[in-house]
């Protein structure tokens, strides 16, 4: 059967090492495969590797699946894995971060690879579940041996062509328009799908995509605008799939600058006062945001990691009560009885309803006397501004989903003190700095005992909740819409594998 689906973006390149974006990786994972893949409940299952174990604290051994051939007929061996490692950890690659803890990798025989670690890494398989394996022969033959990262000057064959071991191969590719896949008959796994041809369409205008779904010209939308959900669910023949995303949307404060960037308060930084941060947290009504902005499509949270991420603890998920009055009092205590003015950075094309959420927050803060100048812009403009090395923001809204599905990496990247290590705290926009927190994270990073590890992570979470450099808001729900008769698996990390799609009779 044929299957057509759409979303507003397109994969930037067919090169699997070009980007770290979930969407691209998800799409390319239909053609290329990782060593380990995930089940819909996020558990790992064997893919190109049949088994793996941490043979000693600094060694991980993977046994590779035999009898796997690439789509061009060549067999898959350890050489391809080694090659893919070289390629993915080269400077042009966007995913070399997966291998931060890996020192080198060796093949002990054609179907066994051994990872030699720099440091103890208990979650390596989790971290490399999005690392897609390319064919050494094919890549070298077409001069695509180097990852075609942004910095490479020449175009790469792999940008427009793909050849992996996966369940589908690419038939035509029109960047920014559509990509057509066909089922790979020689796939090693038993297909659970019944798709023979799959067409992905990039429809930048979401309203158009909704119209197309309603009109029956596509079978599924991968990112449904939440405003269209009501209407779509009312239309016959269309079903809505939702599930909390593994992403937490949060606001953060600059707690390190001596003076805020765009504020009426001069000479000092009000966010250095924990009462001000708490006042902000108490002034934000996440339920109202859920109801009116997210249209019910969110799950409020007070944890920096989502429910579903390893390390999440629902017992800790207790939000300070919404209370503008108390917030006002806290502000007055902190010396701002009349509030103050500050700027807020917000993306407008990244997360569901991101700009509207910010706008709602602006309104709520207005009620405690905080006047916010909202600057909502596209992610291509906002991210360079707020991320390293500029960190040019005083108050912002962002979302985070750890690619390893592990709380540790989220804490390590977002809240570990800046500048202590080249790998940690790289996304610490708030400038949060807490020695105890850093110590816990360092320890958890090498702790193999899951119970102890969880205890450390819980303690770290408590510190964050107490200090409040960030205020988590909610996990947005992933919303997909498909025509009846189409069965798809909705992964919480927004992965969408074609190998689990079934198109029923009604689906054309």
């Amino acid at each position: 059967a044929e299957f057509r689906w759409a979303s507003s973006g397109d994969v930037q390149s067919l090169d699997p090492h070009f980007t770290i974006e979930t969407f691209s990786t998800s799409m390319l994972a239909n053609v290329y495969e990782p060593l380990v893949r995930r089940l819909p409940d996020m558990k790992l299952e064997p893919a190109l590797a049949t088994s793996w174990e941490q043979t000693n604290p600094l060694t991980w051994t993977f046994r590779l699946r035999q009898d796997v051939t690439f789509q061009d007929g060549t067999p898959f061996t350890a050489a391809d894995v080694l090659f893919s490692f070289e390629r993915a950890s080269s400077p042009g690659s966007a995913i070399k971060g997966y291998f931060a803890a890996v020192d080198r990798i060796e093949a002990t025989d054609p179907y066994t690879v051994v990872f030699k670690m720099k440091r103890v890494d208990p979650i390596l398989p989790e971290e490399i579940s999005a690392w897609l394996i390319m064919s050494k022969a094919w890549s070298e033959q077409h001069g695509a041996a180097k990852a075609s990262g942004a910095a490479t000057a020449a175009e790469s064959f792999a940008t427009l062509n793909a050849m992996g071991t996966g369940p589908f191969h690419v038939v035509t590719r029109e960047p920014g328009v559509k990509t057509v896949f066909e089922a790979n008959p020689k796939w090693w796994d038993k297909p659970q799908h019944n798709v023979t041809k799959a067409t992905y369409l990039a429809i930048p205008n979401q309203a158009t995509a909704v119209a197309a779904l309603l009109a029956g010209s596509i079978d599924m939308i991968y990112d449904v605008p939440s405003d269209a959900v009501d209407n779509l669910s009312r239309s016959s023949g269309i079903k809505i799939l939702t599930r909390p995303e593994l992403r937490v949307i949060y606001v953060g404060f600059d707690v390190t600058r001596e003076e805020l960037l765009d504020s009426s308060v001069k000479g000092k930084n009000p966010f250095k006062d924990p009462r001000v941060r708490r006042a902000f947290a108490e002034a934000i009504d996440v339920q109202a945001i859920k109801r009116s902005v997210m249209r019910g499509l969110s799950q409020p949270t007070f944890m920096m990691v989502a429910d579903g991420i390893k390390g999440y603890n629902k017992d800790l998920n207790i939000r300070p009560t919404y209370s503008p009055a108390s917030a006002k009092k806290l502000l007055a205590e902190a010396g701002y009885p009349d509030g103050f003015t500050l700027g807020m950075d917000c993306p407008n094309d990244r997360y569901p309803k991101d700009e509207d959420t910010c706008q709602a927050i602006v309104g709520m803060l207005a009620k405690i006397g905080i006047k916010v100048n909202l600057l909502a812009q596209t992610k291509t403009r906002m991210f360079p501004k707020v991320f390293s090395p500029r960190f040019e923001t005083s108050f912002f809204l962002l979302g985070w989903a750890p690619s390893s599905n592990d709380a540790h990496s989220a804490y390590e990247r977002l809240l570990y003190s800046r500048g202590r290590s080249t790998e940690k705290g790289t996304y610490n926009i708030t400038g949060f700095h807490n020695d105890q927190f850093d110590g816990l994270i360092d320890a958890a990073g090498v702790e193999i005992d899951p119970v102890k590890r969880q205890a450390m992570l819980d303690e770290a979470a408590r510190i964050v909740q107490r200090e409040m450099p960030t205020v988590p808001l909610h996990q947005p729900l992933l919303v997909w819409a498909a025509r009846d008769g189409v069965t798809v698996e909705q992964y919480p990390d927004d992965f969408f594998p074609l190998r689990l799609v079934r198109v029923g009779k009604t689906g054309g």
Partner: protein
Amino acid sequence: MSLTAPSRSSVALPVPLARLAAVVADLAGAATRAPLVALCGLVVGLAVVCALLAPWISPHNPYDLVSVELSNAFLPPAWIEGGSSDFLLGTDNQGRDLLSLIIYGLRSSLGIALLATATALLVGVTVGLVSGYVGGFLDSVLMRVVDIQVAFPAILLALLIDGVALSLLGSQRHQSAAVVVLVLSIGLSHWVQFARAIRGSTLVERQKDYVSAAEVLGVGRVRILVRHILPNVAGPIVVMGTLNAALAIISEATLSFLGVGLPPTEPSLGTLVRIGNNFLFSGEWWIAVFPALVLAVLIIAVNCLGDWLRDLTNPKLA
């Protein structure tokens, strides 16, 4: 001081006023003979009044975030079930009163359109006059500039100006300068047509005997340009300006659609349509439809007036 001087000036002063009054009366008279035009005039007049008096006539103040309640979001118009009489045309996704938003939006839209048109006029008329009158090398250079400018289509230019402003001003400043950026973007992408038209008529006017006469009589060049030629080429400018203002309103809306419009906290009609656009498929049609309706009616009225003025002032069609 002789007695003639004051008497002359006392007579002189009312004359332009009287002329203006006569022109207005003539226009009004002509308009009443075309009821449709009168209606359009009424619409435009109403829009201007609404824009000017927005703070006094709008039922709510959408800029006052303290009074906006998120819980009021997505209320339908008052006459539909679930609507509230407090919000005649319903509310938007932030719980702001749509009617007030439209009234304030008119203010932004008209303001931007007028300022942008004024910018376009200022640049276009100056370039056109100088190019047409001075001629020669300067003219060639200016006209090449016009050629190149035309190669940058209006909205593209606006996108670029927006980008440049962003990187020059820094984003925080940029937000507060959004209006300026919009005005510049739209204005600077529309000046070409004025420059062309004015240059054309200046070339014609320059050949006329009254200009030669002024030159022979020793009148200075700047004075000739400003006092003699400009008033004579100014006629079509009014009409073009009117039509351009309509175009500017549309441009503003389109820019908003492309993501370089006003921030949603200070909406214009275009921004409202853009925001509402998201809710067209979700059943909250009023958020898009009412601003769109106002936009369409306003633009039709302005265009209608412009067309009518053009036909009225075209001596060839008299």
